[in-house]
């Protein structure tokens, strides 16, 4: 029992001091029939044995770094500098609590303040919060916030919003007053999809949610959406699932967004089979008191020195209870720290450079696949992800390529089953993709198709 410091003698002495004769005297409030149930689980194991058992499970998975890898659609394999993991593993960060005692939590608090500033800058917005669970729940919170701000109920989701995000928004609003309208995706015609969205905006609309780049990889100018939305006193919510794109593509803020939500995993955080990830949430100054989530602000201490504290907590559940802006409590603190450390290494210069490499790799993939007969690339404007139409069932083809140790992307049908997209494959290419990987993908695909 390597984690338990009390010895048998300690326990006896302590029971004596308490004045009871056995440990179960302390559990006397538990119904006697229910106390000390039979638990059919293994007994304690040595560290070595645990390591061995878990390593065996891990070995049954194909690590992204071990194969040519093109899977994206909302989570991206990027190179994270070793420094990042070193910093977040420092016990002072790793084993700290939510910084409710600011005098001994300035490390966490200042890092959050830096995070908020970075996220605001990246998204082109005034203010950002200290993080949410992930991009999808942040998106749901944004829809709820839009209702609080506009006092209207109809939320319109664009067709190219990541299917999982749309489903999460639907789930989160199923027992609220919101009415969510999800538009049809048009992978081959992004402009038509956007036009349909603009047409749908009316005076009842609380918000429109648009993803950029869209789930099929298209990059679009959202300024017209913002204009129409604002004309109808609706908010434009922009979702960014690939935050690395903000190093190349005009920011949502510059396109007129009122709320920006995003998945921050790409910066500082690994793939981790989908979590923990990092929800980004930014908005304009005037809406700050309607924001969900934790906020850190600047103040001074008793000596007049600058310091940081959690603030505006009257929005939050632990003060406001059922009237809170959200029920969120724990967020993604350590993931946000990883983001901040990685972002502090990258800076604007590094981010722009990495973004360029991403875009170049995607161009290389586009070029390589366009040359294969029967394969059609649907994207003209994109960042690091494209969608191709294959002459066959994309899911089957992906499976066959996986047998060749090539992870080729996400079949659109995995996100949109039964939507007539069985021949579409979403392919991401980040800076971790090598020329050899692209060649392997092209060759493998040719083989599978022939």
């Amino acid at each position, binding site marked *: 029992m390597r984690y*338990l410091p009390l010895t048998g003698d300690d326990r006896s002495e302590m029971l004596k001091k308490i004045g009871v004769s056995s440990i179960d005297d302390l559990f006397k409030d538990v119904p006697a029939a229910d106390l000390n149930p039979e638990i*059919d689980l293994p007994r304690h194991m040595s560290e070595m044995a645990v390591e061995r058992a878990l390593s065996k499970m891990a070995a049954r998975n194909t690590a992204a770094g071990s194969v040519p890898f093109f899977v994206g659609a909302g989570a991206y394999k990027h190179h994270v500098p070793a420094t990042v993991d070193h910093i977040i593993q420092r016990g002072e960060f790793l084993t700290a609590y939510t910084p409710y005692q600011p005098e001994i939590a300035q490390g966490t608090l200042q890092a959050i303040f830096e995070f908020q500033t970075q996220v605001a800058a990246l998204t082109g917005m005034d203010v950002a919060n200290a993080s949410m669970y992930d991009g999808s729940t942040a998106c749901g919170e944004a829809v709820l916030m839009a209702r609080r701000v506009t006092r209207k109920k109809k939320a319109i989701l664009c067709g190219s919003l990541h299917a999982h995000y749309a489903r999460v928004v639907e789930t989160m609003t199923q*027992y609220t007053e919101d009415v969510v309208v999800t538009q049809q995706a048009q992978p081959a015609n992004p402009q038509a999809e956007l036009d349909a969205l603009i047409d749908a905006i009316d005076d009842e609309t609380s918000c429109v949610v648009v993803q950029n780049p869209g789930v099929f990889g298209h990059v*679009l100018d959202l300024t017209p959406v913002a204009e129409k939305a604002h004309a109808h006193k609706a908010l434009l919510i922009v979702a960014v699932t690939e935050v690395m794109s903000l190093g190349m593509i005009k920011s949502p803020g510059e396109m007129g967004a009122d709320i920006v939500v995003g998945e921050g995993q790409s910066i500082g955080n690994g793939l981790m*089979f989908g979590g923990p990830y990092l929800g980004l949430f930014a908005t304009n100054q005037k809406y700050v008191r309607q924001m969900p989530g934790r906020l850190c602000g600047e103040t001074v201490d008793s000596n007049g020195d600058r310091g940081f504290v959690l603030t505006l907590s009257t929005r939050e559940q632990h003060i406001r209870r059922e009237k809170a802006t959200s029920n969120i409590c*724990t967020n993604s603190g350590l993931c946000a720290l990883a983001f901040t450390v990685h972002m502090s290494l990258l800076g604007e210069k590094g981010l722009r450079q990495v973004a360029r490499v991403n875009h170049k790799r995607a161009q290389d993939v586009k070029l390589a696949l366009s040359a294969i007969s029967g394969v059609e690339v649907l994207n003209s404007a994109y960042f690091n992800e494209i969608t191709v139409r294959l002459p066959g069932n994309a899911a089957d083809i992906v499976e066959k390529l996986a047998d060749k140790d090539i992870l080729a992307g996400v079949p659109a049908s995995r996100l949109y089953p039964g939507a007539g997209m069985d021949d579409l494959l979403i392919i991401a290419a980040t800076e971790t993709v090598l020329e050899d990987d692209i060649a392997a993908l092209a060759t493998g695909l040719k083989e599978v198709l022939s």
Partner: protein
Amino acid sequence: LAEPLIFEMDREDTTGVDVEEVGDFDLEIAGLGRDSKIGCPGLPEPDVVRHYTRLSRKNYGIDMGPFPLGSCTMKHNPRLNEKMARLPGFGDIHPLQPISTVQGALELMETLSHWILELTGTPAVALSPKAGAHGELCGVMAIRAALEARGDAREVILCPESAHGTNPATAAFCGYKVKSIPAKDNGRVDIEALKQSLDDTVAAVMVTNPNTCGLFEDEVREIADAVHAAGAFFYCDGANFNAIVGKARPGDLGVDAMHLNLHKTFSTPHGGGGPGSGPVVFSDALKDYVPLPYVVKTADGLTLKEHADDKDPSMGRLVAFHGQMGMYVRALSYMMSHGSDGLKQASEDAVLSANYILASLQDVMTASYEGPCMHEALFDDRFLKDTGVTTLDFAKAMIDEGYHPMTMYFPLVVHGAMLIEPTESESKNNLDQFIRSMRGLVEEAKSGNVARFSGAPYFAPMGRLDETQAARKPVLKYEAAE
């Protein structure tokens, strides 16, 4: 020493990464280039390492000393768990990889589920909620889905006054009104009052057990029976499940849904505010409504059910992917390390330590309720009466003694609450030292040494921070001086 913000260390056009050269090429981004300045500094690696190392040293973590924060359960975070979560086979796999390439990941989720079900005595678990509050949301949504399925959504959820703030917030999220249940003098739910409130408008009762006063609801089975008799569901906030793991199973006690906080119960690190992970267990009555996705066994191995079909009553998808895999690995690593015997021993040690503190301090501090308590000991500020020292002052003075303060002003049901949770991770020597420090502080407070408290902390990286100023005119990001 003051540490500047990275923005104040900014030098134009530097970066702490080296990037492959790709040469000149035409962008295919429809002219939507980001031309304006972003405004994020990039610092060379040595500066970044130092900056965050120095910042870290202004933090207090479990690794530095006792962290008796009641209801938060700051226990030891084994490094084995960190190492396991970083195995490439867990840390470097994508949520949308072909299912055939992630069989080990599904096996891990399945194994974790098995442990959770066995420890809670329930038939189903939803792993995907991202944190405790998210788990509550999942639980209450399942309750509402089940009620709607029988055409009976109801309107009200009952909560004790001592509930965590997330409980009413969650209820509101699901469109329910919240009504309070009063407590008895012994700090438990007043079951007679509860019964009177239970009618056919009540969807569920949410009770934390052990409750936020650190007490076990001894009439839990009666509560469950009454709730069920009224056609409502019994939601248990599992924030304090760590006190009874291996000692009692919520499923046996009549609970319909309960979330677990993997960080509180199974030692995934708090990380300065997350990430958490909040799996929810369900009774038979609710298990059909679990959210997507979930692991399903097939002849070919394990697979994920990711989409609802027509006859599937699932509440839908709660998060983009499959939840907090990184936390699953850590929690399972912890569970396997402890085993059934160790998990039970951990609960016993946590409860023993809390009672030891209660017994050792109740002569000088005012215990709010009679013991035995569970994993945390609740005091209120009656012992500070007329000393001029508040609970807040007392907490800040603990910082000068080398401790993180206990939880203060929560639960709200007692005045100036001080909720102390030692956890099972402290040695008796540490407990004794803590007790001595607390007794010393009490003596100081009673002897009229107000300055020691009102000006505290004196030996922290910063003096007491002005929270009012922060809220009055919020400065939420760095702005360069004009």
